[in-house]
């Protein structure tokens, strides 16, 4: 498949290999993150006037889901502020590696049985169940952000590398899943060079950089899922064998290796969450919003159990039945659970489209709050940029629904092409498009449901 190595562009090579640009961006992100925590605790309790709520759940979320993930995959992870303090502590330095071994921590290996994203699935689900409170209460947002950074520091102290990012971060799990659609990838140029390189400095590190913080050997990497795009391998490879490729989007979805049930379930958790949020947050049903907000009440338990049943049982259950129907009509014995895992990857584009379409519903409506919170982050009467008193103004309200429809249609088309490719990849000679109709119908039905919820 066609690839273009962006490292051939001298400016990009300099920007990606030099540590300073990354450090400056990360330091700014960390400052913003700490300011958000502070605003959460000492700022106004009015959510739409608080820096923490608007900066994190409107500005950051918009950039993440609409720009960073679709275009750069795990690009956000390379500048994410959450692991920074723990990483500095672990390395014993802020910039490059020191000649003398330094740093703090036990550097233990993460247990083998947790080397998957099930814990991330659970972490995301827990946050999702409380998300209506987290999204609207500055103090709760502050507590969650602080907890994330403390857990990351604790994890870095006990375990090696960026264990928190790879196995625990509730956001990292879905960024990894959706990074498969990205048109950017970090890969080796020639695997035989890696095979012949005995030291594997990309994994162990050298004076030019750290060993892969994500614990990956780039020579064996075939998908974006676990690559944090930190560019350490670009710095440590003595053979200049690392490429940052521009590639056809979604290439990883057709990769036969590395399809796992934990990631497959992530696809359902994300798709299901987008549907539930579209019902609860964008829908006109006030009772549902109140139930989701009243944590611990009888109504909230009803909401929480319905959420879990929909995301973990109903959506994957129906999909499993659809796949099972296909498995009975394909030549050769194929285990339905294996096929379930494989076909679930086809829902990745639709899931991402669902999240973008859902996010469009509230981002352009509420982004105008950003101007006032930037001018007065704590609502203490400051007016740093002269916009503290700017009024709420929804943007593009005439056009957003049409864009949402377009995004969902593109997601559906993309998903169905992936369904067809997955269907044909093992039995191409006997491929029949009609055999996939249950999964195609499933995807179309979910899309129509989302259309109704978001623009109907």
């Amino acid at each position: 498949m066609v690839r273009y190595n962006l490292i051939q562009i001298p400016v990009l090579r300099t920007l990606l290999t030099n540590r300073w640009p990354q450090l400056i961006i990360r330091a700014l992100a960390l400052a913003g993150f700490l300011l958000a925590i502070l605003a959460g605790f000492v700022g106004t309790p009015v959510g739409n006037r608080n820096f923490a709520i608007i900066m994190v759940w409107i500005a950051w979320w918009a950039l993440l889901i609409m720009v960073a993930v679709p275009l750069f995959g795990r690009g956000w992870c390379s500048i994410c502020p959450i692991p920074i303090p723990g990483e500095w502590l672990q390395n014993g330095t802020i910039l490059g590696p020191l000649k003398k071994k330094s740093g703090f921590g036990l550097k233990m290996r993460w247990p083998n049985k947790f080397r998957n994203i099930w814990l991330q699935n659970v972490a995301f689900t827990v946050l999702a169940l409380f998300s209506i409170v987290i999204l609207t209460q500055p103090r709760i947002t502050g507590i969650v952000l602080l907890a994330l950074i403390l857990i990351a520091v604790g994890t870095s102290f006990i375990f090696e590398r960026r264990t928190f990012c790879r196995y625990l971060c509730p956001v990292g799990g879905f960024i990894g899943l959706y990074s498969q659609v990205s048109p950017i990838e970090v890969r080796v140029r020639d695997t035989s060079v890696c095979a012949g390189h005995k030291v594997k400095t990309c994994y162990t590190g050298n004076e030019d950089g750290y060993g892969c913080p994500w614990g990956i050997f780039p020579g064996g990497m075939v998908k974006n899922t676990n690559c944090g795009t930190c560019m350490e391998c670009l710095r440590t490879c003595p053979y200049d064998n690392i490429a940052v490729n521009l590639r056809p989007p979604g290439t990883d979805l057709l990769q036969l290796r590395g399809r796992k049930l934990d990631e497959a379930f992530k696809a359902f958790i994300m798709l299901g969450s987008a549907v539930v949020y579209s019902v609860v947050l964008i829908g006109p049903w006030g009772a549902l919003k109140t139930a989701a907000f009243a944590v611990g009440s009888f109504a909230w338990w009803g909401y929480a159990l319905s959420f879990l049943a929909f995301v973990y049982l109903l959506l994957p259950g129906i999909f499993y039945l659809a796949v099972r129907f296909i498995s009975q009509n394909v030549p050769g014995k194929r285990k339905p659970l294996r096929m379930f895992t494989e076909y679930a990857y086809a829902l990745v584009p639709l899931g991402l489209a669902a999240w973008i379409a859902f996010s469009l519903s509230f981002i352009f409506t509420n982004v105008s709050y950003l101007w006032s919170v930037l001018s007065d982050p704590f609502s203490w009467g400051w007016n740093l940029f002269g916009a503290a008193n700017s009024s709420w103004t929804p943007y593009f309200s005439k056009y957003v629904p049409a864009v949402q429809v377009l995004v969902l249609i593109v997601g559906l088309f993309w998903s169905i092409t992936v369904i067809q490719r997955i269907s044909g990849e093992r039995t191409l000679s006997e491929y029949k498009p009609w055999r996939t109709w249950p999964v195609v119908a499933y995807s179309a039905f979910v899309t129509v449901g989302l259309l109704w919820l978001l623009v109907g």
Partner: protein
Amino acid sequence: MRHKQTRKQIIEIFPRQSWFWSLIGVVSLGIVFVPIPSTFSQPVEKTLRVEASTFEFTPAVLSVNPGDLVTIELNSTDVVHGLYLDGYDIQITAQPGQTAYLKFVADARGTFRFRCSVSCGALHPFMIGKLKVGPDLLLWRGVGMAVLAALAAVWSFHSWSAIT
């Protein structure tokens, strides 16, 4: 080797299939732009009373016909609430216990969200209702496009696999 051959064949086959993508393009343009005939009664004056309370509008879904002269009577039962109508970009604010009036001609068709425009509490950004003006053409055109996209995606791969 087989993979390489397949790719070569795709490159060869797709120009020959330009008729297919042209057809998809024409049909999608039809779905998006062809006017759908619909009959409505003569425009009338319509008054809709809406109660606003934390964090919902009652009724939350309003329906009028295109061209109606609509008056929304917004009555707030607890704190100050507002009503901003997406697409029309108009709004009013109602003090507790008082009624505010929003008068407009429903000249844009479709389904439009209306939302509270005054910070009224934690769930304020999600206090949302819907105004339906005639049939929801955007939704139906979207459903049509979804069906077309599904068929096109299946057919495009079918054509590709048929030659491999």
